[in-house]
C-alpha cells in the first residue's frame, strides 16, 4: 500500500502546485487509484452486505416492533404499545431475573475452569495436546448435542447421572432432574460450564503463550512462588484476554437458548425460561411477532449496554 501511494501523492502535489489550492475531496477526480476512491471501492461490498443483511432487516424489525404483527393475518400500526407493554409484562420480568441469575451462576465458573484448564495444558509436556483436545472437545460437540445427551442421561433410574449418584451412595437414583426448577437450573449450569469452558481455555492459552518466558524466569530468580507468578505476571498480562472471555461469556449467557429449549422448554411452569426462550415463545408459540420483535430490540439494547459497561470497567488503565 505504501509503495502505491507514493506516486499518487507526488502527482497530486504537482497538480495542486499548477492549479493553486483545491478542495481535498475534488482532487484527482476520475482516478481509480485515488486513495479515497480506492477505499470506497474496497469497503463498498462490505457496506452493501451490512446494509442488505443488517441495516435493512434492523429497520424492518423496528417497524414490525411498532405493529401488532401476527405470524399470520393482517396487522396494524400500534406505535410504542409493544414497548410500553414490556414493562408491564410480569413473565418477561421473570425471564430477565432468571437470565441474570443464570448468568451470575455460570460466568465465574466458566472463567475459573477455563483458566485452570489453560494452566494444566500450557506447558509443552507429554500429553498436553491430548488434554487440550479433551478439554476443547465439549465445545466442538456443541451445547445442542450435549443437551440431547443430558436429556437421556438425566432420566430417573436409567440415566447415567442417576446411576452414578446411586453407585456413590448420594441419591437413590430416582432423581427427576428436569421437573424441578432449581435442580434443572443446576444441571444446565454444570452442562454449560463443561461445554463452554473449553473456548475460554483456548482464548486464555493463546494469551498465556504470548507472555515472555523471561518474565517468569526473572520472577523465579527473585524467589517468586508459582502462585505469586500467576498473580503478579500471568493474570495482569492476561487482563485483555480475560476481559474478552468475560464479555463473550456474559453475552452468551444472556442469549442462552438451545440448552433450555432441549432440556426444559422453560418448565416446570416458567421456572427455567430465559429471555431468548420467552421471546421465542411469544413469536412462534403465541404467534405475536410484533411483541416479540419489540422484546428482541430491548434485549439488543440491554446486551449492548452491558457489553459497553464491561468494556469500560475492564479497560486497561495505563
Amino acid at each position, binding site marked *: 500500500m505504501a509503495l502505491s501511494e507514493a506516486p499518487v501523492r507526488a502527482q497530486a502535489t504537482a497538480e495542486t502546485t499548477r492549479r493553486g489550492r483545491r478542495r481535498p475531496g475534488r482532487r484527482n477526480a476520475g482516478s481509480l487509484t485515488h486513495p479515497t476512491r480506492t477505499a470506497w471501492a474496497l469497503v463498498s461490498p462490505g457496506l452493501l452486505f451490512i446494509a442488505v443483511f443488517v441495516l*435493512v432487516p434492523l429497520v424492518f424489525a423496528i417497524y414490525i416492533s411498532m405493529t401488532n404483527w*401476527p405470524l399470520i393475518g393482517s396487522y396494524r400500526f400500534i406505535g410504542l404499545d409493544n414497548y410500553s407493554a414490556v414493562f408491564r409484562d410480569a413473565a418477561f420480568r421473570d425471564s430477565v431475573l432468571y437470565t441474570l441469575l443464570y448468568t451470575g451462576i455460570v460466568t465465574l465458573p466458566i472463567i475459573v475452569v477455563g483458566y485452570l484448564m489453560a494452566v494444566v495444558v500450557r506447558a509443552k509436556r507429554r500429553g498436553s495436546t491430548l488434554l487440550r483436545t479433551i478439554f476443547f472437545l465439549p465445545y466442538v460437540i456443541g451445547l445442542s448435542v450435549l443437551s440431547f445427551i443430558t436429556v437421556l442421561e438425566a432420566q430417573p433410574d436409567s440415566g447415567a447421572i442417576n446411576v452414578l449418584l446411586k453407585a456413590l451412595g448420594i441419591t437413590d437414583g430416582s432423581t427427576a432432574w428436569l421437573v424441578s426448577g432449581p435442580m434443572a437450573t443446576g444441571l444446565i449450569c454444570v452442562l454449560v460450564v463443561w461445554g463452554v469452558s473449553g473456548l475460554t481455555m483456548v482464548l486464555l492459552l493463546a494469551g498465556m503463550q504470548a507472555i515472555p518466558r523471561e518474565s517468569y524466569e526473572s520472577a523465579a530468580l527473585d524467589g517468586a512462588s508459582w502462585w505469586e507468578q500467576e498473580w503478579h505476571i500471568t493474570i495482569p498480562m492476561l487482563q485483555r484476554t480475560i476481559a474478552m472471555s468475560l464479555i463473550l461469556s456474559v453475552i452468551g449467557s444472556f442469549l442462552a437458548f438451545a440448552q433450555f429449549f432441549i432440556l*426444559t422448554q422453560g418448565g*416446570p*411452569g416458567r421456572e427455567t*425460561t430465559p429471555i431468548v426462550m420467552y421471546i421465542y415463545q411469544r413469536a412462534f408459540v403465541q404467534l405475536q411477532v410484533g411483541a416479540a420483535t419489540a422484546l428482541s430490540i430491548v434485549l439488543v439494547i440491554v446486551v449492548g449496554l452491558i457489553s459497553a459497561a464491561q468494556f469500560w470497567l475492564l479497560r486497561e488503565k495505563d
Partner: protein
Amino acid sequence: MTLRRRDVLKLAGLGAAGAMLPACSATLAEPDVTAEGFGAGATGTVRLWCRSATQTGIQVVVDRFNAAQKRLRVEVTPVLDSQYVTKLATAIRGRRVPDIVDIDDINSMLFIYRDALTDLTPLIGELPYRDALSPGHLRLATRNGHQYAVPFLADNSALFYNRELLERAGVDPMSLTGFDSYLDAARKVRRLGGDTYGWSIAGNSPGVLGFVVQPHIWAADARTVTGEVGAQRGDIAGNETVRRTLELYRTLWREDLLPRANFSDAATAWGSEFRANQVGLFPSNYAVAVLSADEQMRNRTGVVLMSGPDGGRAFFDGGDNLAIPRGAGNASGAWEFATFALDLAQQSALPTGGYTPVRSDVATEEFRRKYAQAVAPLDQLDRGYAPPTLAYNLLFNQPDSPFIAMFRQAVFDGDIDGALEAGQNGFDQILEQAQL
C-alpha cells in the same frame, strides 16, 4: 459518484419498504367452493401437510386414494407436531401454502381467526352424513356459524380399565361414575398388593394432563376457559370442580395409589404399567391403552367415558380436522380427497392406526366386534369437548403452561389453594396476551 450518508439512508429506506411490500396483503385469495364441478374430477397434484404423529394413519388413506384413480395424486408432507403451527403460519405468510392441511383440531381456531382457511360451510352442508360428524371437532372449526374445516380423525380420551384386576378387587366397572367410586376402586386394586396400582397418569406431560384431566371438569359441565374467543378468561380459582379434580389426584398420590414413576413421566413411558397388567384404571386414548398392548391385554381392557366429581360423562374431543388454506392451488382436488377420507371404508379403518372415526354411523355391529374399545366415544359423540381458544397450546400443551404447573403444585406439593391462585393468574395472563 460520491455515496453520501443521505444516499445510504435513502437506499436503506427503499430496501425496507421493498421488504415490507410482500407482507402488506396478508390474506390470500379464497377458492370458490361453490363453482360448478368443485370437488369432482380434479387433476394434478394435491399437496397435503399432516402432523408427524398422524402420518401413519393418513398415509394409509392417501395410498388408497392414489390407488383408486390416476388423474389426481396426493403428496404427503409430514411436519413435526411441535412445529406445525409455526411452519404452516410461515407458509401462509410466505404465500406458498399446501392444498390441504391435516391439522390438530385444537389449533384450527388459530388459523380461522386469522382468515387463513377456506369457508367450507356449503360443502359440509351437502355431505349426506353431516349430522353424524363429531360435533366437538366441528365446534373447533366454526366461527360465526361458518365451518372452516371438516373432522377427519379422532383421538379421544377415555377411562380404560383392567377387567381382570377390577374383578379380583371386587369392583364393578359399571359403578365407575363419580370420584368416590374412582377412589374406592383405586384403593381396592392397590390392596391387591405388590406393584399393582389403582390409577396411572403421566404426571410430567403437559399434553397428557390437559387431555385426561380436563374431561373430569367438563363432565360436570364446568369449564377452565370461559367467554367467547377474543374475550376469554380463566375460570380456575373459584371453580369448585377444578378444586375437587385436583383433590382427587392429590388423594391418589398421597395414598400411594399412583406409581411413583408418574411424578416424572413426560409420557415417554405412558401406559407401560397399564399394559404390563399392573394398573386398574388408566385415563388415556385408544392408541396407548389398546393399540400398543398385546392381544392378551387387549382382551382384559374395558373402557368408559370419564366422570366428573358426582357423575356425568365427557371425553377430550381431540384429533385432526382437514382444512383448505386460502390460496390453495388445487382446492378442488383437496376437497375430493377430504370426502374420500371421510368415506366409511376409510373411517372404519382408522383404529388400525390408533385413531377412532369422526362419524358416529361407523359404529356398525362389525365395527363394534372388531374395535370394541374404540366405540365408547362414538356412542356419545355429543359428550366430546375441547376448549375453543386461540391459546390452547400456551394454556395446556407447553411445558411452561399454567395447567401443568397448577396440577403439579396441587398434586405433588399438596398446595391446592396456591395452585388454584397461580393457575388463575397464569390463565388470565396468557388469555389477555392472546387477545392482543
